[in-house]
């Protein structure tokens, strides 16, 4: 067995990024993700990397744009209000087709909100966040181990598809401590012939840009980008199915909500209720196929979220509203207790059963 260390989720992201070959981190502190910056500040100088605390989130994301243009692995991290500030930069990264990793350790909102965990940036993350037609690959870890492994995966997908990967975590995932194995295989890299690394007088200039004043040209890039997104939706969606084989009720939950839900599913099973869980690991692309398949056999869905109900829309879309979808939620930094999820499962079993 690989040797384990005891890490906070935030530290696991930072260490995994370094193991994935990221040597450039730009950020600005905000609770509850500050440990990522703190870890990078300690470690990057020792390994010849760059840690830079920018003067603002806006500056940090534009520094990411700069390094990404050279083809090197680069990241930034923040929490909800800080991600809003970065949104212009996220749109520019998409417009210039640049690979980067962005971490959002979500806290309660809107506005300055609070410092307790939340999942209420789901729309912002899965629909792009900034202006224009674009997506990010959005990975939703549910353990400290996944904070590490999905960080490595995020860099690989970003390079492969020339786009931003986002780790969509929450305050609990960032702060909780669990044993982690960091025994990853060497991270896959790809050639980046588009990178601005200097022509050495041997090739034409590479240009990284998101400004296209000719509408037909701009349209062409948008269509090309969405062809790529279609391929990603077909091949890269990931989810975990738990006790779904004979399930009559399907709980949908990601991240911390999935951990709580799993306990509730176990309790409901003890009571003889046939319930299972689909945990999206990528929330964009959303694991539509798993939900579409479930819609043909379960009686009802329950979306468990730390928000006013955002992923529930994707569950309804993926299932073409074939079966009722109920919401079980807390907001503002509160986490649903397993008892609340269990009560929702019981209720859905009664209502869903009558349909």
């Amino acid at each position, binding site marked *: 067995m690989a040797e*384990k*260390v*005891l*890490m*906070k989720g935030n*530290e696991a992201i930072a*260490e995994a990024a370094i193991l994935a070959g990221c040597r450039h981190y730009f950020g600005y502190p905000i*609770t*509850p993700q500050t440990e990522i910056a703190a*870890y990078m500040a*300690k*470690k990057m100088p020792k390994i010849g990397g760059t840690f830079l605390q920018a003067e603002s989130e806006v500056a940090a994301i534009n520094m990411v744009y700069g390094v990404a243009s050279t083809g090197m692995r680069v990241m930034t991290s923040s929490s909800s209000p800080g991600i809003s500030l970065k949104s212009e930069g996220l749109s520019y990264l998409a417009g210039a087709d640049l690979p980067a990793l962005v971490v959002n350790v979500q806290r309660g909102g809107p506005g300055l909100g*609070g*410092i*307790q965990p939340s999942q209420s940036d789901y729309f912002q993350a899965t629909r792009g966040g900034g202006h224009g037609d674009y997506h990010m690959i959005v990975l939703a870890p549910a353990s400290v181990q996944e904070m590490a492994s999905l960080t490595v995966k995020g860099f690989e997908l970003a390079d492969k598809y020339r786009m931003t990967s986002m780790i969509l975590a929450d*305050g*609990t995932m960032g*702060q909780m*401590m*669990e*044993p982690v194995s*960091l025994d990853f295989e060497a991270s896959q890299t790809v050639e980046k012939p588009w990178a601005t690394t200097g022509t050495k007088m041997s090739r034409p200039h590479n240009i990284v840009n998101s400004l296209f004043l000719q509408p037909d040209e701009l349209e062409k890039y948008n269509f090309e980008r969405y062809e790529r997104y279609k391929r990603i939706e077909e091949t890269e969606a990931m989810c975990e199915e738990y006790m779904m084989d004979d399930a009559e009720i399907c709980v949908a939950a990601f991240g*911390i909500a999935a*951990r*709580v839900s799993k*306990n509730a599913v176990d309790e409901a099973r003890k009571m003889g209720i046939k319930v299972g869980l689909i945990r999206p690991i990528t929330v964009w692309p959303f694991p539509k196929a798993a939900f579409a398949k479930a819609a043909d056999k379960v009686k009802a869905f329950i979306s468990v979220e730390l928000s006013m109900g955002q992923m529930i829309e994707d569950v309804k879309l993926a299932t073409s509203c074939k079966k009722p979808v109920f919401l079980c939620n807390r907001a503002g*930094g509160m*986490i649903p*207790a*397993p008892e609340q999820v269990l009560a929702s499962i019981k209720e859905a079993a009664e209502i869903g059963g009558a349909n």
Partner: protein
Amino acid sequence: MEYKRLTMLCGHYGTGKTNVAVNLALDLKKQYTSVAVADLDIVNPYFRTKDSEADFAASGIELICSRYANTNLDIPALPENLYRITEDRETKMILDIGGDDSGAIVLGRLAPAILAENDYEMLTVINKYRPLTPDVESTIEVLREIEAASKIPFTGIVNNSNLGEETTPEDVLASVRYAENVASAMGIPVVMTTVKADLYAKLAGKIPGLFPLQLQKKYY
């Protein structure tokens, strides 16, 4: 364990200082009437001594803590009755200090009075399984930074090496030599090795100064 009037817990962050502090406070209360625990963490707004407020109240332990702790107000605030720590010499106290040198800086202003009274233990909690302190050299680097910020030299080590819920007796046994090596390099003793309570029976008699810890419950 025998206690001085002040027991301070400092160390690299995430080593388990707060869990140890809570357990020591409850242990201290078994021996003395007037006991207080001070939450002086200015680094991390989560997982604080204040989380155990109800347990302290039930046991008659006083909590000295910033009124802004656990209020969602993310500021490095100190309690307004901070100086009770050095002035109330009738009360035995456990001081839970924030992680690393940035947390230990809180002690700097109290150091002259603490050193003058000279009735303290300055303990560092260490965990071999934390990624930035896996060996003697890296651990001592952090401890020296803390001493420079706190202006109080360490007097003992609490070996709290663990992998959370997955900790095995072998993990704890494998950490003993690490703790002893840190201790001898620092010229101070290992005063205790702390283990979660369910491992205590399996390790009793095998490690000197073994101390069982009750951990906070979680539901996810």
